């Protein structure tokens, strides 16, 4: 099954709090090939602002999309980050 934005990898940081979603997203994008997209699944509401801030400021990555959804009554935040170089 192909994921949204054809993500090459998925990182699950559900249940983890600041600063782990950003720190682990950085680690996971390091392992990507250029132009590949990483999907990040988080439950930390702060990840919406934090991952955007990180992606906008950091060279070599670009924020493709952020989706807030409800899954069985719990808020899930999905982030899509592309490695650009």
């Amino acid at each position, binding site marked *: 099954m192909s994921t949204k934005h054809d993500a090459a990898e998925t990182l699950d940081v559900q249940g983890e*709090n600041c600063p782990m979603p950003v720190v682990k997203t950085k680690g996971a994008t390091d392992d990507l090939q250029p132009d590949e997209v990483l999907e990040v699944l988080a439950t930390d509401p702060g990840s919406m602002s934090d991952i955007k801030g*990180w992606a906008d400021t950091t060279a070599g990555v670009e924020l493709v999309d952020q989706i807030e959804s409800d899954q069985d009554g719990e808020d899930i935040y999905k982030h899509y980050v592309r490695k650009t170089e």
Partner: protein
Amino acid sequence: MSTGTQSTAGETIEDAAALEARIEELETELAEVKADEDNQQMVIIATKGTLDMAYPPLILASTAAAFGWDVTIFHTFWGLEILHEEHSQELGLSSVGNPNMPIPNVIAALPGMDRATAKMMEKRIADNDVASVEDLIETSLDSGVELQACQMTIDLLDYNEADFYDGVEVGVGAATAFQRMADAEIQLLV
């Protein structure tokens, strides 16, 4: 007048050569500036060793490393407890003199209350899925954060290198910290 023209042409060639040399020099300088830009630096001086004060330096440091920054935390005085492998797992916390805590000072001052307060905070940290101090230290080291232990404080508290987490740098002093601070974009005292 022809000689005059020749001499002008000679000067023009010399000027061009000088200009080329100058351009080369500036390009090298620009490359150095760009290289510096790629490596922005933050230095945090961690001086406190209570459970609540261990978090801000470690969280900021691991986050800055994720942004691609070079990060150093220089641990001095009670900040050294954060790097002490055994002590870092039972950092203290007191309600005495802390008006943000719900316990009256007269009760908070009783024997055993500091430990109970620290335990209560540890439970809150675990219940809220906040990483432990140990996890944040491992994460920071894995992300390339330099954790330095002030040598003067190591001697003062009678610790030795084996007491600290693997990867902690010992044998450094204020001059090392100051040199890093002078080169850094962000310097914080916590």
